[in-house]
């Protein structure tokens, strides 16, 4: 089952909410496609980023009932190829998820 960009954004927002509840991040994040998840301005430190990816993976597995792996290097390459940015934003992660799940 493909996960649309919009659905991926919802799931990402849920992950941020969960990270706040579990005190992995200090304050609530108003998630939009420009929200930085990795790089300057990100509310996530390196441990928070790994936890974010792991939890996002868990939620995508629940959503699709498929074995989904979010490989950080693949996301990075997708980001560089699409945007050549030095940071990773929520919108790019959502696009990556849509592309990753298009053949499910």
């Amino acid at each position: 089952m493909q996960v649309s960009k919009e659905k991926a954004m919802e799931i990402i927002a849920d992950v941020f909410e969960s990270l706040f509840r579990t005190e992995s991040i200090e304050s609530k994040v108003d998630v939009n496609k420009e929200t930085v998840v990795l790089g300057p301005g990100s509310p996530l430190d390196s441990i928070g980023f790994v936890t974010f990816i792991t939890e996002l993976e868990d939620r995508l597995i629940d959503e699709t009932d498929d074995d989904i792996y979010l490989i950080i290097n693949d996301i990075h390459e997708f980001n560089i190829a699409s945007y050549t940015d030095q940071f990773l934003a929520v919108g790019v992660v959502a696009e990556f998820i849509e592309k990753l799940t298009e053949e499910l």
Partner: protein
Amino acid sequence: MDKKPIIVITGASKGIGRGMAEYYLTKGFLVAGCSRGESTLNSEDYMHSQIDVGNEREVRKWIRSIKKVYKRIDALVCMAAYAPANLLLTMTSAAHLEPVLKTNIAGTYYVCGEVAKIMMQQRSGRIITVSSMAVGLHEVGTSAYACSKSAIVEMTKILAKELAPVGVTCNIIAPSIYQSEGVDALGDEVIERAREKLTFKNNLEIEELCHVVDFYIAPESKQISGQVTHLGLVC
């Protein structure tokens, strides 16, 4: 969710890994083990998977399968190792060196990485990696094996720092001689030369090794991380 603690042991079909799997089953743990071959260990509390720890993809799938079944991982012991025959460095070819590095360094790296992600989420866990007396003895002919085991120490100490903020500890056991196929592969000459240099010359018993793991995984050891426990040798 099952309340029994969950321990993951690599290299669980033979040698120390097998002994540890049996020990923790008797202690009431749920044990998830792996090896390249099959296991003859039969217990409803034991889950065995045939994987190559040097294959990142296989490791990723294996750890996910454990997470699916048990929902968490309390402790990891990285026992899987490849002990090559004794050879001078100048005689060591890539074909001889690469499986050592792949299993001992990359294998430990991949398993620790995947398990650490789960432990970071649960904000608890104990990781124990395995070095060797070979690191301190600098024996002729052990360059490939000893350098791989030395790398594990460095890797584990760095991982200990990285995971400290989430309450996960990482420690190292450096055993001396435990009678196993892996140690036998080093050859009698190397083993006996090493034995002469040991502080305690008897072979280790499985209970001695498990005692160290018990210490590291105890709740009271929550601030003990990045440490190496040598058995049989004063370093």
